[in-house]
């Protein structure tokens, strides 16, 4: 995955961006629940939902191309699962309805993550009392995602620079050892982070 793709949030000065994260997350959840749990083929409701999302997207001032790109990235998964639904009676209708539903929900989540910082969502999870161990894990994960992605890219590059064969077996072996190395480094870094947390008075 590209480095830029790791960061869905796009900063703009818009009314949507300024809305409190709780409102946006709550709204997105409500929207997804309604759309996902509507009976199949409620086409007017789908149309209305699409209209709302397009309006919000317009207000957010994010380039339509950027939104479309993110949507295109996740759409194939939905399409793949939806294809299976073709193989039954009335398959085409189920297929069309399911795909429409999932596309609307995907669009909604893409819009949420493009206009809301993940750190704000984390604070929201704290506030609604999601177990702290889970939130801590998510926060650390989000923080070190970028560090680890950079480390992985470096290791892959270093390996590629001294690999001259192209056969699949060695590609697998080398990717696997990158992963192993990444784990070793992650656990070493975890030790140092623990020291840094204690150094600033962390109480367990």
């Amino acid at each position: 995955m590209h480095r830029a793709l790791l960061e869905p949030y796009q900063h703009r000065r818009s009314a949507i961006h300024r809305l409190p994260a709780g409102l946006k997350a709550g709204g997105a959840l409500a929207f997804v629940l309604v759309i996902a749990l509507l009976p199949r083929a409620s086409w007017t409701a789908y149309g209305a939902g699409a209209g709302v999302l397009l309006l919000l997207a317009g207000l957010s001032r994010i380039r339509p191309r950027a939104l479309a790109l993110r949507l295109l990235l996740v759409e194939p998964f939905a399409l793949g699962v939806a294809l299976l639904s073709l193989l039954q009676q009335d398959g085409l209708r189920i297929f069309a309805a399911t795909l429409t539903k999932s596309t609307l929900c995907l669009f909604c989540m893409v819009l949420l993550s493009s206009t809301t910082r993940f750190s704000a969502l984390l604070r929201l999870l704290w506030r609604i009392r999601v177990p702290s161990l889970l939130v801590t894990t998510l926060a650390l994960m989000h923080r070190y995602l970028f560090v680890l992605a950079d480390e992985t890219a470096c290791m892959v590059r270093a390996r590629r620079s001294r690999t001259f064969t192209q056969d699949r077996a060695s590609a697998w072996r080398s990717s696997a050892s990158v992963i192993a190395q990444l784990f070793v480094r992650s656990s070493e870094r975890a030790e140092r982070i623990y020291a840094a947390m204690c150094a600033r008075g962390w109480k367990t």
Partner: protein
Amino acid sequence: MHIPDGFLDAKTAVITSALATAGLGVALAGVRRTLPPRRIPLIGLAAAFVFAAQMLNFPVAGGTSGHLVGAVLAAVLLGPGAAVLVMSAVLILQCLMFADGGVTALGANVFDMALVAPAVGYGVYRLLRRLVGEGLRGRLFATAFAAWCSTVAAAISCAGLLALSGTVPLRVALPAMGGIHMLIGLGEALITTLVVAAVARARPELLLERTGPRLRPRYGELAAQGLLVALGLALFVAPFASSWPDGLEQVAATLGFEHRAAATPALAAPLSGYVIPRVGSAALSTVIAGVAGTLVAFGLAWLLASLLTTPRSRGARPGGKGEAPRAPRAA
């Protein structure tokens, strides 16, 4: 395998969310009780690690590539409770940040990939470790087969959920998802085993099993998780058992549908064709194909473990091994 929004109906979404919450709660409580504070950052780092590892591509054929899922890898490296937590965190982040996997399907995805996958995987792993002993070969063999089983189990669970929602009929979902993932599982097993072997070579102390008094409460958690998994699976087996003949009758009654239904899984079947001809019942042939696939995977896992542990005298390829350098910065 991430189910998007819109594929599950209300009852399935609610049931799986409840199961996922309960399972994650058990895992959280267990981890909080048994994990020494100094390993708490490791859980977060491990989640980032699994996410980063999933981004690495493994070339398969014809320009396509696969990637690691990591449930068994996490379970073998960190223990089952931590693996549940790590995989859940990965799925939650993917859902919230990247719209990868639906919000209403988050419970289902956590159930499949963060509960069923590590629980089945770790169960198989422990069982095999007890049977084949403590050596590296036994560990790698158990890892390989556990990774395969966990992938297939998660796929079967996913198929069951889709069928329970009435989105995809089980007679299509089960062979298609099961068949494809019996193949994908081979890749998962290979990657997981290669990684565990490389970690064992570079830093064997990271793999030391924590034994002693802490083991006892873990069995209780494992049992609770196993119960949840069984409960969930039972929910899908029930319609499976009752609707299968109906499905068949329907096939016979309607459009000569079986050609299409059989054509899809055959694309991906690990055997020459998933549906073995000349066996009367489709259900029976699916079971036979499943058993045969499992035996093949078992054999391949053993072969892989043997290959990776026989001392290599010829051609120690530079750059091909995990010569992870120790980097003690605080020295």
